[in-house]
C-alpha cells in the first residue's frame, strides 16, 4: 500500500465552547481501506469523524485548529468550498434518515443539488448506486414509493446508496449498524467489504467485533486523545497501550 493516504490529520484540536473535545490528533487514513475508530462514549471519535466533512460547522460555538488534508487539499482553508468538500466526503448517519421523498428521489438527491438534470444520467446513477448498495433487486419495482416505507436495514442501505450516488472518494459511517438487528448488520458489513475496493471508508463503531471483522486499521480514542492506531489484527491481539488492552478486554467502556 504505497499510495498516498486519503486523509492526513495533523495536530487537530477542537473546542465546544470552553470544553476541549479533541487533543492534538494526528493520523493518516489510507486510501481504499476501512479504518475503524473505537473508544468509550464521549471519547471524541464521532466528533473527529464529523470534522472530516465539516459537519461540525453546523454547531454553534465550535472552534477547530490543525490541518485536515483530504486528497492533499486542506478542507478548512478559507478558500475551501464546503459544498465541494461534502461532495467528496460522503456520510452515513447512525439513525437512518432517508428524506421524505421517493426512493428514486432519495438516491438522486445529491446529483440534483449538484445541478444534474438529465433524466438518463440520473436513472443510470440511481441503478448503479442501488446495485452497489445491494438494494437494487429489492426496490427496482417500486422506486416511486416513499423511502420511509422501507425496513430499517433497507433504509440504511438506501442512505449508503445515496451517499455513493455522487461518487465521493471517501465515505464516513457513524455507527451505521447500531440501530439494526444482526441480520441487517451482517448485510451492511458485507456491503462495506465490497465497497472498500472503490471507496475509502472510515467507520465509527461501538461494536468491537464489528471493528475486528470489517476494518483494516483501527484507531482507539480515549478522552479526546488518540491512544493507539495500527493494523486491526495487531491492535486486537497485541495492543501496545494499557488503556487499549483494558478497553478491548472489557475492563471499562
Amino acid at each position, binding site marked *: 500500500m504505497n499510495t498516498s493516504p486519503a486523509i492526513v490529520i495533523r495536530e487537530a484540536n477542537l473546542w465546544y465552547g470552553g470544553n476541549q473535545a479533541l487533543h492534538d490528533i494526528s493520523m493518516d487514513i489510507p486510501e481504499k481501506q476501512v479504518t475503524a475508530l473505537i473508544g468509550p462514549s464521549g471519547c471524541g471519535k464521532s466528533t473527529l469523524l464529523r470534522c472530516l466533512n465539516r459537519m461540525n460547522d453546523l454547531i454553534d460555538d465550535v472552534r477547530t485548529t490543525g490541518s485536515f488534508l483530504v486528497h492533499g487539499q486542506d478542507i478548512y482553508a478559507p478558500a475551501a468550498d464546503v459544498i465541494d468538500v461534502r461532495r467528496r466526503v460522503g456520510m452515513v*448517519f447512525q439513525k437512518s434518515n432517508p428524506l421524505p421523498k421517493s426512493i428514486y428521489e432519495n438516491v438522486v438527491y445529491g446529483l440534483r443539488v449538484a445541478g444534474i438534470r438529465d433524466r438518463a444520467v440520473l436513472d443510470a446513477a440511481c441503478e448503479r448506486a442501488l446495485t452497489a448498495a445491494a438494494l437494487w433487486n429489492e426496490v427496482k419495482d417500486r422506486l416511486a414509493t416513499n423511502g420511509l416505507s422501507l425496513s430499517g436495514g433497507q433504509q440504511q442501505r438506501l442512505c449508503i446508496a445515496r451517499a455513493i450516488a455522487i461518487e465521493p472518494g471517501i465515505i464516513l459511517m457513524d455507527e451505521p449498524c447500531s440501530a439494526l438487528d444482526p441480520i441487517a448488520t451482517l448485510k451492511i458489513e458485507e456491503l462495506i467489504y465490497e465497497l472498500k475496493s472503490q471507496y475509502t471508508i472510515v467507520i465509527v463503531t461501538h461494536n468491537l467485533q464489528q471493528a475486528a471483522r470489517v476494518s483494516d486499521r483501527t484507531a482507539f480514542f480515549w478522552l479526546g486523545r488518540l491512544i493507539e492506531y495500527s493494523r486491526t489484527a495487531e491492535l486486537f491481539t497485541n495492543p501496545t497501550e494499557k488503556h487499549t488492552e483494558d478497553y478491548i478486554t472489557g475492563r471499562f467502556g
Partner: protein
Amino acid sequence: MAGLKTLFRRGEPAIWFSGAGLGVSLLLIGGMVALILIKGFGFFWPGALAEVTLRDGRVLLGEIVAREGIPAPGTAEHLQRDRLQMKLGNRDITGVDVTWIDEDDIVATTYPDTAVYVERLEYGPFIGLPVQLVEADGRVTAGAEAVLAALPAVLRQASSDRADIRRLERDDVGGVNHRIGQARLGLRALDLEASTGPGVDHAARRAAVERDLSALEAAYLSLEARLATALEGASRARLTLRASGGEEKDLPALDVFRLYPANHLTWAGRAGVYGSRLWEFLSGDPRESNTEGGIFPAMFGTVMMVLIMSLVAVPFGVLAALYLREYARQGVVVRVVRIAVNNLAGVPSIVFGVFGLGFFVYVVGGTLDQAFYPERLPAPTFGTGGLLWASLTLALVTVPVVIVASEEALAAVPRSMREASLAMGATKFQTVLRVVLPAAAPGVLTGLILAMARGAGEVAPLMITGVVKLAPDLPLDSYFPFLHLDRKFMHLGFHIYDVGFQSPNVEAAKPMVYATAGLLLVVVLVLNLTAIMVRNRLRKRYQTSAFS
C-alpha cells in the same frame, strides 16, 4: 377514605372533569350552530297561512312564525298564557308587517285553501286571496281557483321577460355605458397631457376619441329604444289580490317574484319552494334594503377578500418565519422580534383598520391616484376604501398568526433530515427549498387555516377600509382588468351587522340575520375543510416518522 385516595391518584376525577368540560363546550357550540341553522335556514320553509278571527271581530290572514309566553313579571300569570307572532305582510296597506296576538283572543282559525303568499318587488310580501287575473291579450280569469290554475304559465312568462330586460339593461346598455365612461376619461387624460406638455399633436388623438364617443352615444340611443320596446312588449298581465281586511291590490305580473298557495302545497311542493328560496338566497342580489332577496354579492366579496388576504399573508408570513428560524443569528434581536410578532397577534383588529385607512388608503392610495389615475380626480380610485386595501389590512391582522405557526412547523423539521441533505453537498438554501419547506408544509397550512378563519370573521377593520352596505357591482366582471381591486364590496360579517342593527324593519330582518350568520359559518367551514384536506394529503406524502 383509602378508596377516595386511590381514586384521586388514579386520576379518575380528572377524567370526569375534563370529559364534562368537553361535553359542555360541545353542547354550547352545537347549540349555537343548531340555533343559527334552524332559525336561519328554517326561515325559507313555506309555512301554512292561517286566517284567525279575533274576539273584537278583526280577521287576520298570515303566517304564524313564533309563540312565546306572555310576560307579566311579579304577577301569578307570568308566562301562563301564550301569544303568537303573525307575519301579515301587506306593509303598504296596513303599515305593519308583523304583529303579536294573544292566544286567548282567538275565536276561530281556518286555513283557506286558496290563500297565497306573494313575494314582490316592493313593500315586502303580500298575503291574501287571488281575485282575478287580466292577461296581456285582455283575457280575464276570475275566481280564486281558476286564477291559481292560470298563474304558473303567466308568472313563468313574466319571469323570463324580466330576465331579458335585465340582460339588456345590465349587459348591453351597461357595456355601452362603460365604454362611454372610458372614452370620456380618455378625453380628460388627453386634456391633462395637453396642459402639462404642449407641442405634441393631440388634435388627431382627440378627434379619434371623439369619433368613438359619438358612435358609442348613437349605440346607446339605439339600445335605449330597444329597451323601451322590450318594456312595452313585456308581460302586461295584472293580478288582483284581496287582503284579509277586504282591501284590493293590483299587481303587475312583472313585479311578482314568487307566489304560492301556502295551504294547498304538497310536501314536494313545499320542498320546491324551499329549494327555490334557498337558491335565490345563495345566488341572488339583495332587495328591500338588504332585508330580502339574496346575499350572493356579500358571499362573493367575503370569499374574494379571504383569497386575496391569504395570497398576501401566507408568502410574507412564511418568508418571515423562514428568516427568523433559519437564517437570522439567534440572539437578543431575534428574540425581541419574535416577542413583537406574538404580541401583534393579539392587537385588536380595529387598530389595524385605522392603520389601514391612514396608510394604505390615504397615503398609498392617494399617491397611486396622483400617479396613475389623474384624469379621474377629484373622484378617488385607490384613494378610498376598496377590495385591495381591505384585504391588505386583514393580511396585516393575520400575518402574525401565519408567522407563529410557520415557525413552529419549521422548528419541528428534524435535524437529521437537514443533516442528511447537507451531507450530500446541498447548500443551506437548497436544503430549505427541497427538504425543510415541503416537510413543514402541513404546519404552514395550519397557519393558513387559522388565518382564514380569523380573517373571514373580522368586521371592524373592514368597515373603514372598503366594505359597504350595498355595492353596485361585483369586484370581478367582464371589463378589463376583470378584477377591480379599487371597488368597494360587500361582506357577510358586515351584512349581519347591517341587516340586524341598521335595518328599518327589524322583525323582517331577524330571520335574514340568522340565515346570513349560518352562511358565514358554512363559508368558513368550507374554506377550512379544503385546507384541512390539502394538509392531510401533504402529511401523508411528507410523513417524517419511520415505523420500522
